[in-house]
Structures are given as C-alpha cells and as structure tokens.
C-alpha cells in the first residue's frame, strides 16, 4: 500500500489525497516541532529525529553513532526481571506508540516473567493510511529502532529480533541496509520480515500470525503474545517508535526522558500531521504541545478547518472551533472524547464534505475487515451502507437509530479492536458533523461531495471480505442490510 504525502517542497500544488500516486520520491519527513518554551538544551527536541538532515537522508551507522553515541551494553543477569533496562523503562513511564498506549515497562515485565526464551518483534507495519511516522522513522533513523530492539533483546535474554515492515514501504530498504551495517556486532540476530499491506495486518496478533507462516489476520487471544507468540515463544512486540524510545532511555535514562512531556505521558512523540497546511508532514512533538503550535510549525493553515481527526480511522473527531483549545496529550484530548492514538492528526478543511468523507472511510474500514468474525463483517458492512445512504439522502427515518443499534451490536464482538475503532470513528463523525448529516438526510448529496477527497486512503482497495455463504441460523426476525443506495453491502 504505497502512498505519498505532500512534502514541504511540493506544498504549493494543491494536494489531492484520494488517489495517491505511487511516487518513488522519498517523502520527506520533518523534524522539529515547536521548541518548548522552557527548553533547556540537551533535553529538548528533536530526540527521535535528532541529527536527521533537512534533506531527509538516512542516518547511517556512523552518523547515527555521532548523533546518539554508543548504545550501553547491559550486564547479563541471572533473572530477566532484574534487568536494569526494564526498570529504567518503567520509571520513565514510556507507553506504547502503536495506538494502544500500553505501559511498555509492564509489557517488558510480563515477557520477562515467562519461562521460555522470548523473542523481540518490532512492529513497523503501519496499516493506518493516515499515519506515516513509522515509515519515516524507518527511513531516517533505522538504527535507533534497531538499537531499541537489541537493547530489549539483551534485557530479556532473547537471541532474536524480527522487524516487521510493510512490503511496499520505503523503509524496507533502509532497514535492510541498516541491519547489514550492524553485522554481528549486536550479538542478537536481527531479521527483516515484510508484511502484506492492509489495515489489520499491523495488528499485534495478525503480525505474529504472519511471522508464524499463517495469514496476516488477527487471532483469538489468549494466549496473549507476551505468553505465546512467534514460534510459541513469549513475544515482546511493540511499535517501532516505542523501540526507538527504549534506545534513548537506555542511553540517557528515565529522568532525561521525563524532562519533556507530561506526567502521564512523558517524552516526545511522532505525529503525522496532514490537511490544509503549508507543510503537512511527520513532526516530533513533546506531549502536551498545543495543536495551534504544531500547526504554526507546519507553516500555518491554508484553508479554514472544519474538524480535526485524532487517532486515525479508529479515532475521533473534534470540531474545528475547538482547535485553539486542543493540546496533544491523551489527558487533554479526553475532555473532547478523543485520544492521540498512534499520533495521527488529520485536519479536514471546510471545503470538503465531511459526510462524504465519513462514508468513504467507513466503507473502506468495512472492506478492511479480516472477514473472520460475523459481527464485524456484517456489522461494519451494514454501518457503511447506512452511512452511505445518509450521505445520498436515501436513508430511512430510523437511520440514526440503526447506526446506534449497529454500534452496540458490533462493539467488543470481534477478535480484535477493528470493529470498535470503525464504530468510534463513525459515531464521532455523526456527532461532530450533526448539521451536515441532517442536511444530507434531507437533501441528499451536496456540491462539496464531488470535490476531491481529502482523507487519505490507499489507491487499490482489497476485495470485499465475505464470510462463508452458508445460511445463517435464523433468528426470529432477520433484517437484511439495506442496500437501496446501491452500495454493495458486505455480507
């Protein structure tokens, strides 16, 4: 799934995000976010993207060592749980950067407590279309990620680390080269594994299934990955950015790490900022930075903003009027019913039609269902169908009721969080874009519906998922998904 984001250089051309060209220009990533007001030298940004030259070249091993210094080696201990690194990560309060935000120290402890030898897996699959940060990190600072994986492996007594990256990502090359540069110096075998594109392919259990030779689809848990994952070993699987942070903590310690960010969310994070901006790109920010400051760092707005989507297509919308109030930390965003997730911040301009965009994305999310769980396949399909009908103005008067029912039916009834995320996105859209939805319900498509779509989606959608077509057990009153709008409902 190849997509390009507009770069600072090409920002003069208006950007269409509907059909991304499979351009082979390296999209430039960008550093430097807003310097925090009370920055004090070495504690400040950039951290993850430190030393990355403006031209966006990869940090090879020499430059990487120049910028970050040597990775300290931990003394081998008898009990894994006594590892110094685990303690440091715990004290640093690092949370996973893949979207779930699970405390990394706790995960390390859980893996360390298992009996057999663990294995480390770096998740750089990045199935979320609106997110670009992992690719950028892989392209620019692969050694930092690998440092983190190696340090973790040492701490857990693992002999192997696998990096899972999307097969069409530019990061494949840079990571492969970086692994080669390191040779056998690490005393840990690092393997690169490519993962098929697709939204759920980056889900934790799906990635592990793929590494085990099965299709890249989520599996039923328990057993949880930290108990049994790749090759039935306890698996320490985390996002690439998380591992990069571990590498920094190993070098500079927890206090340094906590010098930026908030008490709940210490440290820095990569955010993918897109929308009507002068320089949409990946930025590194300190948690708690105001959205306003980030927008300024991105050269300011080029059009008024209707709303901002936080956390990607499993996230939530916040009205554009509240833009000035928003600070980028989960605690702050929670007041508006949103969270940072994997750091995706997507601004929707007032020129787009939010209803059409919502319908598009919901349809796409329905199509990305793994097709394994009935409630997800049927429920998301029906949800996408209903929203499409709302957009076209042909929905029944109970459409909103139907959406609520579907949301209830679908939540927590899949093997993974995909349906929950899709429902969250759709419900929050209906809430925030209440007026536009009401308008469409009455009058159908608006003139902005046919404008170029803004929310990024991959060019080539996969075939619609369907389940085995055996007739279902008959419930007393079965309703078929309404397809009056001509939208093909996913069975």
């Amino acid at each position, binding site marked *: 799934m190849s997509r390009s984001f507009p770069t600072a250089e090409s920002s003069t051309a208006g950007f269409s995000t509907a059909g991304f060209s499979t351009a082979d220009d390296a999209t430039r990533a960008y550093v430097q976010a807003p310097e925090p007001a009370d920055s004090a030298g070495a504690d400040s940004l950039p951290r993850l993207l430190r030393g990355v030259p403006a031209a966006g070249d990869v940090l090879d091993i020499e430059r990487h060592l120049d910028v970050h210094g040597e990775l300290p080696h931990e003394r081998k201990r008898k009990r894994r749980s006594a590892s110094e690194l685990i303690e440091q990560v715990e004290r640093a309060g690092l949370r996973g950067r893949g979207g779930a935000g699970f405390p990394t120290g706790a995960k390390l402890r859980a893996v360390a407590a298992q009996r057999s030898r663990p294995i480390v897996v770096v998740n750089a699959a990045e199935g979320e279309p609106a997110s670009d940060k992992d690719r950028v990190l892989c392209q620019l600072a692969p050694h930092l990620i690998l440092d983190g994986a190696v340090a973790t492996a040492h701490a857990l007594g693992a002999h192997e680390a696998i990096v899972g990256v999307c097969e069409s990502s530019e990061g494949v090359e840079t990571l492969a080269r970086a692994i080669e540069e390191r040779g056998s110096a690490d005393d840990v075998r690092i393997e690169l594994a490519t993962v098929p594109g697709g939204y759920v392919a980056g889900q934790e259990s799906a990635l592990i299934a793929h590494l085990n030779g099965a299709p890249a689809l989520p599996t039923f848990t328990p057993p949880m990955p930290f108990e049994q994952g790749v090759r039935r070993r306890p698996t320490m699987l985390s996002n690439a950015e998380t591992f990069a942070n571990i590498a920094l903590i190993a070098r500079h310690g927890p206090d340094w790490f906590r010098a930026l960010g908030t008490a709940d969310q210490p440290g820095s994070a990569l955010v993918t900022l897109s929308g009507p901006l002068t320089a949409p790109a990946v930025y590194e920010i300190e948690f708690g930075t105001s959205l306003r400051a980030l927008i300024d760092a991105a050269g300011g707005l080029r059009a008024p903003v209707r709303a901002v989507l936080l956390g990607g297509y499993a996230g939530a919308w916040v009205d554009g009027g509240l833009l000035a109030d928003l600070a980028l930390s989960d605690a702050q965003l929670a007041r508006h019913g949103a969270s940072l997730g994997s750091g995706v911040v997507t601004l929707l301009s007032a020129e787009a039609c939010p209803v059409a965009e919502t319908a598009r994305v919901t349809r796409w999310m329905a199509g990305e269902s793994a097709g394994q769980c009935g*409630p997800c396949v*049927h429920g998301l399909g029906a949800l996408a169908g209903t929203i499409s009908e709302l957009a076209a103005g042909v929905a029944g008067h109970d459409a909103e009721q139907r959406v609520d029912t579907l949301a209830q039916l679908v939540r927590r*009834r899949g093997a993974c969080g995909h349906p929950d995320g899709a429902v969250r996105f759709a419900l929050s859209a209906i809430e925030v874009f209440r007026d536009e939805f009401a308008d469409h319900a009455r009058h159908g498509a608006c003139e902005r519906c046919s404008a170029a779509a803004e929310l990024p989606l991959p060019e080539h959608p996969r075939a619609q998922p369907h389940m085995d077509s055996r007739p279902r057990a008959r419930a007393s009153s079965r309703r078929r998904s309404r397809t009056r709008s001509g939208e093909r409902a996913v069975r």
Partner: protein
Amino acid sequence: MSHRLRLNPIACEAHGMCAELLPERITLDEWGYPVLDEEPLSGAVLDHARRAAQACPTFALLVERERERSRT
C-alpha cells in the same frame, strides 16, 4: 469460583445451537451470531452452559473459570 461464558468469534459460524440450549444467557443477533451475557455462571445455568459449549460444532463457545485477563 465462578465461571463465565466466552466466545471465540473467529471460530463461531453462527450455527445457533448455543442460543437454543442456553436462552437465559445467549441471544442471536440479526445475523445469527450469539450475543453473550457476561454475568457469572453457577448452579443449573452452569450445567446448561457446559452442555451448550459441548454442543457447539466448532468449539467456539467456552465456559471459563474466572481469571485475570490482561489486555496487552
């Protein structure tokens, strides 16, 4: 020691026998898939639940002892 119902949604193929055998705790949604009541099971209901789990052709329905489930 209480027990709870759990479903493996991947294995579930909406055969629907569980809802026939344990209507107290299981209903079928509009597509024929089971919606479980998460309340603890005990006594006679537990026996029925075990029977329902045995009847499931794909072993999707599980009766599990309470345990700490952490979601990583």
